[in-house]
């Protein structure tokens, strides 16, 4: 958090100072019917006063479990089965519940991952902050109320005094996360555990909140244990990194050293797959002045070379637009108190075209209207005004056979691979369902088509008989893609199709999509909030804000010389964008 140059990052050189947190050989397991399943296997970690240390890893790596063990909040079946967690010389693994209650909040603060589920929906915001202040003996009575307002103001809620009586559902995600940060820091703890504090938020909000958190913890001299899956983010925010893989620490040390010279193959893959970093890699391939350094850092990796090469050498094709959107507007009516109605302009007079065989990205934050555009194009919502043409034909009023034919040619893939597959349907049936719906082929032909599709998305044939619950997130998204491809469509509308996936899995799916595009001459409309991913896959970019397109240009133009202030703000907010390399 402070300038890396001025802080001695090597733990060995700080021997004279006792560490705030010292984890040695920590083992955590979960009790199941088949015995203890290890989740954390021999983790060592040292954090000094005032330092920020990030644990990086994908889901299931044990990073959150490690953090939860520190604050004694392991979920039901979890327990520490070995090793020690020393906090200021006391071994936390030996603490009783009552002792933990003393330490929590006052000594060790906690900022959880999902702001939507971490505030109690039935109590007001003020109540929930005040409760923390009172429980930790910071203040009582009227003073506590005053302190509550201060805490919230410090956390960035300027109108805190008016909003104390409001409930969590009346706050946006970013605001809730500020409240949670306020709660975590309310008692000025020595250590703050921030478990993916911003992964559920928009990039620009994420940046504001992390900046704010950084300022606060620096001012208070708080040490931070930062848990994240995003290597770029971790390197930007922490001076020390610990990379975890399958419950073990595979690499640890100063952030910069790890980023520049990852030793362990897993870290190398992570560095290679991080879209934020890959985006810079493209930059370095493209720019002739690429230094030795950037080549060394980004030269090798598992995001397909082809993907990067393609991104580096793309050119706008000159064909006719396959999808042509002209001046479309969508107004939703929102019922208000009584009989009044408010109009919400979700999409405000936008126009763009998508050429055959290309990828056009719609980028924007939540509420920008990008998903509404997808629904309008897919004919899932009706237009308020404007025109959408597909293959030279106006889609207005299309129905019956024509609509069916349109749906065959334009298929969607949605964000949540957990919600968009029917858990009661086997993978084979899921993929074959569009064929049935369009009454295509005999049972035998459908069977063969499913086999072919499983091959195309690199799933084993045996997956046909499995159910979504048995698959990982990445595998489910492959199933969703296979289902979308079943009808041999020409266009795929990918609505945040890789946003919910771990970085390595995301890389694989992006590779797959790129291969399929070349192989099947697909056209993609790629809807995302993640500019780093856009850089990898898109030919053209439309940046949306508040229902309008604020900038539309080729990807290179947007990334290299965008003049739009909002686009620049988004680019700035890409985690890792600020890491200066080659120092």
């Amino acid at each position: 958090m402070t300038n890396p140059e001025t802080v001695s990052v090597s733990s060995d050189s700080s021997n004279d100072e006792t560490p705030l947190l010292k984890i040695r050989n920590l083992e955590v397991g979960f009790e199941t019917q088949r015995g203890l399943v290890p989740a954390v296997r021999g983790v060592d970690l040292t954090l000094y006063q005032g330092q920020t240390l990030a644990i990086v890893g994908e889901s299931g790596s044990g990073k959150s479990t490690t953090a939860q063990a520190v604050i004694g909040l392991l979920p039901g079946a979890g327990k520490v089965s070995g090793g020690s967690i020393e906090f200021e010389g006391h071994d936390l693994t030996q603490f009783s519940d009552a002792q933990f209650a003393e330490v929590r909040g006052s000594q060790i603060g906690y900022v959880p991952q999902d702001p939507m589920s971490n505030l109690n929906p039935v109590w007001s915001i003020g109540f929930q902050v005040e409760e923390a202040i009172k429980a930790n003996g910071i203040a009582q009575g009227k003073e506590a109320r005053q302190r509550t307002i201060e805490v919230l103001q410090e956390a960035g809620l300027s109108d805190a005094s008016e909003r104390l009586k409001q409930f969590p559902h009346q706050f946006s995600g970013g605001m809730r996360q500020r409240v949670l940060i306020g709660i975590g820091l309310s008692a000025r703890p020595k250590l703050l555990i921030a478990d993916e504090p911003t992964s559920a938020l928009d990039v620009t909000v994420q940046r504001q909140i992390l900046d704010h958190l950084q300022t606060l913890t620096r001012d208070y001299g708080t040490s931070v244990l930062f848990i994240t899956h995003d290597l770029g983010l971790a390197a930007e925010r922490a001076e020390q990194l610990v990379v975890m893989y399958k419950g073990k620490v595979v690499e640890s040390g100063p952030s910069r050293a790890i980023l520049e010279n990852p030793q362990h193959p897993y870290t190398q893959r992570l560095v290679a797959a991080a879209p934020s970093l890959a985006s810079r890699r493209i930059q370095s391939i493209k720019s002739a002045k690429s230094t030795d350094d950037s080549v060394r850092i980004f030269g090798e990796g598992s995001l397909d070379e082809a993907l990067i090469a393609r991104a580096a050498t793309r050119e706008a094709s000159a064909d006719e637009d396959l999808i042509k959107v002209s001046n479309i507007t969508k107004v939703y009516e929102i019922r208000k108190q009584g009989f009044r109605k408010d109009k919400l302009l979700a999409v405000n007079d936008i126009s763009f075209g998508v050429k055959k065989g290309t990828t056009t990205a719609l980028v924007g934050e939540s509420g920008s209207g990008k998903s509404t555009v997808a629904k309008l194009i897919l004919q899932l919502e009706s237009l308020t005004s404007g025109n959408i043409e597909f293959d030279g034909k106006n889609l207005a009023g299309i129905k019956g056979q024509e609509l069916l034919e349109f749906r065959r040619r334009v298929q969607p893939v949605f964000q949540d691979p957990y919600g968009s597959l029917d858990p009661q349907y086997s993978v084979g049936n899921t993929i074959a369902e569009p064929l049935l719906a369009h009454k295509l082929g005999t049972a035998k032909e459908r069977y063969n088509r499913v086999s072919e599709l499983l091959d195309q998305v690199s799933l084993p044939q045996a997956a046909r008989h499995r159910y979504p619950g048995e698959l990982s997130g990445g595998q489910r998204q492959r199933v969703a893609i296979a289902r979308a491809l079943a009808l041999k469509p020409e266009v795929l509308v990918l609505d945040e199709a890789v946003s919910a996936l771990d970085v390595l899995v995301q890389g694989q799916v992006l590779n797959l999509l790129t291969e399929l595009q070349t192989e099947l001459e697909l056209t993609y409309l790629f809807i995302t909030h993640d500019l780093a991913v856009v850089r990898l896959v898109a030919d053209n970019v439309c940046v949306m804000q508040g229902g309008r397109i604020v900038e539309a240009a080729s990807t290179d133009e947007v990334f290299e010389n965008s003049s739009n202030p909002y686009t620049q703000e988004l680019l700035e907010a890409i985690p890792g964008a600020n890491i200066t390399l080659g120092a």
Partner: protein
Amino acid sequence: MLWYAGKRFLQMIPVFFGATFLIYFMVFAVPGDPIAALYGDHPPAPGVIEAVRAEYNLDKPFIVQYLLYIGGLFQGDLGTTFSGRPVIDVMAQAFPITARLALLALAIEAFFGIIVGLVAGLRKGKLFDASALVISLLLISVPTFVVGFVLQYVFGIQLGWARTTVSGAAPWGELILPAIVLASVSFAYIVRLTRASVADNLGADFVRTATAKGLSRRRVVTVHVLRNSLVPVVTYLGVDIGSLMVGAIVTEGIFNINGVGGTVYRAIRLGEGPTVVSFVAVMVIIFVLANLLVDLLYAALDPRIRYAK
């Protein structure tokens, strides 16, 4: 909120007419001649049956009968039973007794059900939880009258703590044992509902956050787990008010209580249209009011629910 409550009251009007019409029709459609049945094997003098029919409007077409009944209703006249007692008097005698019984049962099942459910939820998988589950399963599967007879035998006859039958006036004290019997099945459901809800909420993210704030376990449970867990329980209780009034038939039979259950049962057997319809209409209104109460309680328990429209 007021607007919402007002709207719900207005909705009761069609519900009332619909329910009374349907019930009236069903009583009308029951085969057999109620007047002839009154006299059993000794037919009265000719003309008497016709006269009695005319007195109770049974000689008129169904729709006229119904309209006459509704018309009387608005003048405060609910008709008379075949024995000549005004229906309103019968109701004034039966409803308070059953209401006392149902309220006692409601209080018993809510109080003990929530406590047992909470403790079971907090100690999921432990002995207390397992026993609570077994006992609740027993109460659900054993018929009410069996529970009734067992309690009557143990507490009434063996221990002599309570009267085995309830006197005509049915004071609160005598109704405790019948109320326990009446509450038994619902108690079991509330235990299970509360237990599941508490166990669910214990794993919620906001409970973890509350613990991380440094709150004591006691405060986490009472402030953050219990209130959130009560929402489904309150729904159940609301619906149960109605079932308790209706379900009292069996319990009232066991303890010989002169409540709604017995009265309606007799009226149905005799085919006394006005009596049946009046009683059922009141029950329908109680049902609707209880549901309204639940919806308003919802909003009090969960601020996300606001009835703006």
